């Protein structure tokens, strides 16, 4: 994976630059190199395969349209693409909040009073500075940030799960984000 030039950061930046010139071959390579990651991210939010693939389709059309706006001084290329896909997924989820509950097993309780989604966020954490910063937060806030970002949970979802008023959730999230920012800058 690392040795394949098309999946390196520089390789993906180059592909995006060529896509900005309407290069269809580059678009195909860009898709091959990035679609599995984007689908993983979107699927975790929408929890519905067909829906997630629709959003991926939409996301790649946006990538095609916006490739000229990509600025590698401001974003890493994969972050830029993931953000387009995540943003589309969350927009979709907010538009059709019931779309995911049909197939949703995230809210199922597991022994110990945790959801499977919560279990999921605890199970897999890479060693990076961001996770280090998140781990400095109080436990509930760590989970909230991860459930929001990775699973697309809204303030309401979090309020229900953590038994807190929505305004408290808002305050906690904002403090958590503030702390993360400070920690990353330190």
């Amino acid at each position, binding site marked *: 994976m690392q040795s394949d030039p098309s999946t390196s950061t520089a390789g993906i930046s180059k592909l995006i630059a060529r896509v900005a010139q309407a290069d269809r071959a580059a678009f195909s390579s860009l898709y091959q190199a990035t679609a599995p990651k984007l689908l993983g991210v979107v699927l975790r939010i929408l929890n519905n395969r067909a829906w997630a693939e629709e959003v991926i389709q939409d996301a790649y059309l946006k990538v095609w349209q916006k490739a000229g706006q990509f600025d590698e001084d*401001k974003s890493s290329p994969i972050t830029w693409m993931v953000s387009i896909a995540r943003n589309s997924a969350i927009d979709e989820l907010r538009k059709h909040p019931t779309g995911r509950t049909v197939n949703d097993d995230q809210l199922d309780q597991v022994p110990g009073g945790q959801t499977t989604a919560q279990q999921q966020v605890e199970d897999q954490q890479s060693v990076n500075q961001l996770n280090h910063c998140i781990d400095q937060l109080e436990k509930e806030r760590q989970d909230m940030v991860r459930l929001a970002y990775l699973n697309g949970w809204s*303030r309401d979802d979090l309020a229900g799960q953590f038994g807190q008023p929505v305004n408290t959730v808002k305050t906690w999230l904002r403090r958590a984000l503030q702390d993360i920012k400070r920690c990353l800058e330190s």
Partner: protein
Amino acid sequence: MIERDDLDMQIAEYVLGTLPVDERNALNARREQDPALEARILEWEQRLADLVDDVEPVEPGPELFGRIERALERNDSSSNSNPGSNVVALRRQLNRWRWSTAVASAAALVLVAVLTVQPQPSSESFVAVFQHDDQQPAFLLTVDLEQRQVNIRPVTAEAKPDKSYQLWIKADELGPNPRSVGVLGDQFQLDEAALSQYDPDLLREATFGISVEPPGGSPTGQPTSPAIHGYLYPTGDDAQGDNP
């Protein structure tokens, strides 16, 4: 300071995904128009990006890319009313032209793509010129869809006594080959009726090209000089100063 912090947290929650939907929609709309906001959103996206390190990739179905390509074709051939995407649409039109000229062998063209912004008055016609390099002549071309008038101005191009410039139009409806619109006069003028046979819908979708030809125009009915494409010259007022 408090307001700035509040905006910062609003942006952070937007990126996190927890911003309420009305505020979220407002930011979605605003970021397109507001580069400072866009930059701050990108900063937050970058800050939180490593969270996806923990997401396992999932292989998409084998047919998904085909669906994306077909959707791309559909978008490509429908007119685009979003002014912000003009440049992209222009590139696409250029690309289409380039593909077909490559097939038809090296046609000799200064490519000029024209796109009009549909909902706006015709005076807002969007124009661009593509040129291969600084050695090649470049033109500005405007099309008034309503009047079916074409106006050509030289940017770096100069009249040549032993050559003629010829304008071509290409559109899906006209088949695979460019069709001659006319040979330009000494002042780069064209017959006023040059576009009268084409309806505005076709013109909106069309790509234009200018080739360097023997005096009086191409003897073959198709462009004969080497392919040229390149720089964009929007006609907007603030872009005028960039023209050499």
